[in-house]
């Protein structure tokens, strides 16, 4: 129908798109494959968000309820688009739940997939209980208690390893995941706040707390929370006979190999292309860029475009993105879609 925008994915980007569409006087149909809305921050249970400091369940939760309470939005949970016909102005989508949706334009807000640390076995995830990912550590922070999963002791030393699953040609991931430096600096502060006797060390190649995140996260975590930043990428995580983790790397300033004991090691996991992207590309007839994210159209005059007319995208579907920017892009993609509907209305009258 010419008054409807189909939105696929209900993370921060898709939720923002849906609200923008209805605020512009049109209808939105949201198709989300999970049984809950909210995307990665809700599904993976993030703690306090960067940069607002608000709990994810409150901040993103507000976006979810705004959409759920919106009479202009129809929501299909636990569903995917299985096939698509038509063109801009008259798309027809068949859903996996048997329903059919007609829409004038489409916004793909299908986001990303977390890097699976199992693909980097030398860093001990899956081998040692006390090696965790940032998402698991965020969940631990949400419980308000910091403890080693193996025996419940309070950790004296926690290491956060940056760029796990990012910036690594050995595993075919040549991108920077953009947010994990800041998220890790934030996580270090959260850990210290809950457990003052725990010292946090962050191992980095470069620190990318871009823009206003520099003093708010990188500087603050050092000045106020005594986080230690060590310039070294870790090569291996092993265990000593007493069960403590041993982290092996090079201290690049003194140029010597180092082996340091830790109680918990956290992988700052990166953002992979959505594992559904090959399927999405096929169903929607759009291109993917070389890393496997959705291919952006020429951005300057075709903002939020894909390689197919009438289909827009936003947020982490395009590549590693922050929540705030995903939300803005969701609104931008929605306004492009709405503009298509407007053009149809004008043509008809």
């Amino acid at each position: 129908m010419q008054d409807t925008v189909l939105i696929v994915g209900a993370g921060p980007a898709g939720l923002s798109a849906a609200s923008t569409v209805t605020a512009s006087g049109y209808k939105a149909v949201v198709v989300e494959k999970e049984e809950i809305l909210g995307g990665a921050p809700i599904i993976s249970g993030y703690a306090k968000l960067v940069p607002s400091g608000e709990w994810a369940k409150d901040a993103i939760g507000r976006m979810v309820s705004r959409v759920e309470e919106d009479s202009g939005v129809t929501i299909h949970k636990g569903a995917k688009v299985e096939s698509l016909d038509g063109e801009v102005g008259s798309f027809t989508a068949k859903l996996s739940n048997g329903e059919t949706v007609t829409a004038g334009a489409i916004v793909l807000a299908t986001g990303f997939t977390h890097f699976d640390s199992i693909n980097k076995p030398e860093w001990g995830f899956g081998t040692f209980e006390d090696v965790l990912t940032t998402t698991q550590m965020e969940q631990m922070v949400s419980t308000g208690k910091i403890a080693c999963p193996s025996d419940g002791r309070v950790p004296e030393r926690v290491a956060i390893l940056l760029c796990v699953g990012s910036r690594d040609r050995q595993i075919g991931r040549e991108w920077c995941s953009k947010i994990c430096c800041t998220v890790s600096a934030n996580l270090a502060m959260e850990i210290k706040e809950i457990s003052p006797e725990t010292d946090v060390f962050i191992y980095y190649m470069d620190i990318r707390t871009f823009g206003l995140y520099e003093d708010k996260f990188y500087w603050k975590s050092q000045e106020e929370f005594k986080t230690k930043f060590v310039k070294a990428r870790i090569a291996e995580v092993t265990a000593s006979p007493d069960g403590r983790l041993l982290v092996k790397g090079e201290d690049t300033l003194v140029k010597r190999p180092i082996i340091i004991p830790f109680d918990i090691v956290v992988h700052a996991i990166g953002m992979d292309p959505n594992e559904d992207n090959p399927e999405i590309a096929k169903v929607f007839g759009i291109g993917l860029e070389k890393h496997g994210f959705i291919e952006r159209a020429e951005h300057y005059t075709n903002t939020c475009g894909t390689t197919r007319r009438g289909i827009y995208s936003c947020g982490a579907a395009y590549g590693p993105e922050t929540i705030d920017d995903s939300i803005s892009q969701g609104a931008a993609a929605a306004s492009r879609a709405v503009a298509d509907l407007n053009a149809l209305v004008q043509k008809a009258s």
Partner: protein
Amino acid sequence: MATYAEMQQIYDDIRGDFRYDSELNGCLNCGICTATCPAAHFYDYSPREIVQLLWTENVEQIYDAMQEKIWACAQCMTCAARCPFKNSPGGLVAIMREVAIKHEMQSAKDVLRPFGRVMLKLITTGNQLSPDMIQPDHFPDWGPNIQKVEGDLSVLRKAIPVKTLQTVETAWEVSLKTSVEMYTIWEMTGVMKSLELMDENLFDVIEDFIDEKREEYEEWLEEQEDED
């Protein structure tokens, strides 16, 4: 001490090697290579430092590293298997060593001197290996865990439908024909030239040996023809 122009020439020779661009893509300065490098654990040597010196074209420090540091590398290539940028620090060291030899650097001569007897043996008769020679008893430096691998190997060999033990008998014999072919390889790949630059005496001894073997081979060929 070399002049700056000489050091620049040494760098240019390294840079000009046809392998250089595939061994060095840039560097993230992460230190993974050094952390996994066995040599770095025992010597004042860091593959990351070597990569950085080359990448930043620090010709003086490159020259300095070629005096001692680059000879600590064991050429195990763990660094190349791990580098997130897919550099090969070990491969770069190999190029630097070849250039050190080309420039007749004293450090190269000093490193090779104790290996005169090994080189004599290797260059004249080669280093034959068959799978059954590679036994943990002969290589205590492999450590105790290798036994586990060894246990699986005999099973794996059966599973692989490729002959792996057919050389067990022949590997112990030195074939005259193979030796002569090997000498041609040494010459054509520049090994003999390098040896001449490094140790003239050893070079002469080996040349004599090679000449003798070649004569022997010619005679043997003639004998074969006569028999026909």
